[in-house]
C-alpha cells in the first residue's frame, strides 16, 4: 500500500511537471523545433531581451502589481478593521457578501462587467480612451481587495480586545491605538495579504484581457498576443524565466517564513 501510494504521488507529479520541464528544455534548443534537440543555445533568450515590447510589458506588470497591491492592502486593512468593529450585523453581512463577489464570480464576468462600466463612463465623460493604465489599476485593486480582507480580518478577530482597551486607558487616542497596538498585532495578515495581492495582480490574465488597451500590455497579455497564432520559441524562453522566478520566490518565502516562525517561538520562550 505504501509503495503504491508513493508510485501514485510520483506519477501525478511527473505528469504535472512534464510539460513545463519539456518547455524549459526546448527553450535552450538551437533549432526551432519541439521534437528534436539540436544543441544548446541562448538565442531565444537573446531574441526575447531584444524585444522592447516584452520589456515594456514586464515594466507595466511590475508597476501594476506594486501599486495595486499597496492600494488594496491599505483600503483592505482599514476595511477589515472597520468590519471587525461593526456592530450592525446586517450591514456587516452585506459588506462581506459584496466583497466576496469578485472571488465567487468567474473572472470573465468580473472582467466583462468592469469593461462595460469603463466603456460607459468613457462615453459619458467623453474620454477618447476609456481603457488603459487607469482602468487596469482600478480592476486590479478591485479583485485584490477581497483577498487582502480575507487575510487580515481573521487576525482582527483573533486579537485580544483587552489590548486596545488597555492602550485607550493608558491615554492613547483611538488613532494611536490603531497604529501602535492593532496594526502591529495583525501585521502578519497584512503582509500575507500584500504578497497575495502582488502575485494575483502579476498573474492575472482574464480580467486584464477585458479592461486593457493595446497601449498598456502586461506580461500575461503579451504572452497571450504572442501565442495567438504560431509557436514562438522566445515565448518558451519567457515562460522558463517566469517559472524559474516563481520557484525562487516560493522557496524564498518558505525559508523566510520558517525563519520568522523560529524567531517567534524563541521570543515566546523568552517571555515565558
Amino acid at each position, binding site marked *: 500500500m505504501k509503495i503504491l501510494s*508513493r508510485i*501514485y*504521488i510520483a506519477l*501525478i*507529479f511527473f*505528469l*504535472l511537471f512534464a*510539460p*513545463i520541464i*519539456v*518547455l524549459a528544455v*526546448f527553450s535552450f534548443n538551437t533549432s526551432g523545433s*519541439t*521534437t528534436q534537440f539540436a544543441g544548446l543555445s541562448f538565442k531565444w533568450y537573446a531574441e526575447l531581451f531584444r524585444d522592447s515590447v516584452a520589456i515594456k510589458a514586464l515594466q507595466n506588470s511590475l508597476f501594476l502589481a506594486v501599486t495595486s497591491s499597496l492600494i488594496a492592502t491599505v*483600503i483592505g486593512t482599514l*476595511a477589515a*478593521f*472597520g*468590519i471587525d468593529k461593526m456592530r450592525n450585523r446586517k450591514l456587516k453581512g452585506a*459588506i462581506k457578501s*459584496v*466583497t466576496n463577489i469578485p*472571488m*465567487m*464570480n*468567474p*473572472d*470573465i*464576468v468580473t472582467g*466583462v*462587467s*468592469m*469593461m*462595460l*462600466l469603463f466603456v*460607459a463612463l468613457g462615453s459619458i465623460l467623453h474620454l477618447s480612451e476609456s481603457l488603459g493604465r487607469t482602468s487596469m489599476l482600478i*480592476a486590479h*485593486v*478591485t479583485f485584490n481587495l477581497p*483577498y487582502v*480582507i*480575507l487575510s487580515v480580518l481573521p487576525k482582527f478577530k483573533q486579537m485580544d480586545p483587552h489590548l486596545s482597551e488597555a492602550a485607550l486607558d493608558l491615554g492613547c*487616542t*483611538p*488613532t494611536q*491605538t490603531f497604529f501602535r497596538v492593532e496594526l502591529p498585532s495583525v501585521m502578519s495578515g497584512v503582509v500575507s495579504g500584500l504578497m497575495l495581492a502582488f*502575485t494575483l495582480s502579476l*498573474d492575472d*490574465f482574464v480580467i486584464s484581457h477585458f479592461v486593457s488597451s493595446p497601449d498598456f500590455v502586461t506580461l*500575461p497579455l503579451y*504572452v497571450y498576443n504572442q*501565442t495567438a497564432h504560431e*509557436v514562438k520559441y522566445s*515565448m*518558451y524562453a519567457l*515562460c522558463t524565466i517566469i*517559472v524559474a522566478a*516563481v520557484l525562487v*520566490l*516560493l522557496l524564498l518565502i518558505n525559508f523566510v517564513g520558517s525563519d520568522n516562525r523560529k524567531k517567534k517561538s524563541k521570543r515566546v520562550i523568552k517571555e515565558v
Partner: protein
Amino acid sequence: MKPGSFFKKAAAAPHIIWSVMFIVFPLLFVIYFAFTDNYGNFTFDNLTGLSVYTNTFILSIGFALIATVVCLLIGYPLAYFISRTDPTKQKILVLLIMLPMWINLLIRTYSLMSLLDNGGLINGLLQTFGLSKIKMVGTSGAVILGMIYDFLPYMVLPIYTTMSKLDKRYIEAAYDLGCNNRQVISKVVMPLTVPGVISGITMVFVPSISTFYISQKLGGGTFDLIGDTIERQFQNEITYNTGAAISLIMMVLILISLAVMNKFADSDEEGGIIV
C-alpha cells in the same frame, strides 16, 4: 459621539465606496446591457435570443463537469496520500502542488500544447518509433485534459487542507471500534473532508466552465465554449448586449450552484486558497 468612534466607523468607508463603484455598478451595467438593445431601449430579445447558444451551454457544462469529476477522482487519493506521508516530505509535496498554481495559466496551457501539438513532442516521438501521428489538439479530449491539467492543484489543495486539520483521534477511535481501513476512509475521512471537496469542486468547476484560453489553444478553434462566446461578443461594440446576456445567465447559474453547494458544506471557511 465618543471621540474616535468616527475613525472606527470611517475605516471601512473607502472600501464600501470602492465596492459600490467597482463591484456593484459593473454588475448593474451587465444587467442593464443584458436587457437593452444597441440604442438603450428595454428588451428581452438578448435573453430569448440565447437559445442559439443552447449547445454551447450544454457542451461547456459537460466539459466542466467531466474535468471536475476527473480532478476529484485523481485529486482526492492524492491529497489523502500526501496527508499520510511524514511531515518533512509533506511540506515539500505541498510546495510542489502549489507551484503550478503560481505559474500563469497561459504558460501551463501553452506548455501542454507544445506536447500535444501536431509538431509537438509526443507526435515527434511517435514518428521516431515509426508510428503515425495522432491528432490531439482540436479534440474534445485535449480540451478536457487541459482543464484537468490546469486546475487539478486547485482540487488537491483544499482537500489536503481539511485532511491535515482532521483530528487523528477520530481515526484511532474508528479503528478501536472495529473499523477496517476501507471503513475508516468511507465512514470517517470522507464525511469529514466534505468542506474541502466542496471548495475543490468550486475552484475547478468555475474556471473550467468560463475558460476561453484552454479551448482556443487546445481546441484548435473547433470548440466554442461559453467563455469563447462571451469573449467574441466583447470584441465588437454591437454585440455587447448579447455578451452581457450570456454573462448574466452564466453568473446566475454559478451563483445558484454555489449557494446550493454551500448549504451542504455549512462552513464559511474559504478552503485552502491562502496557505
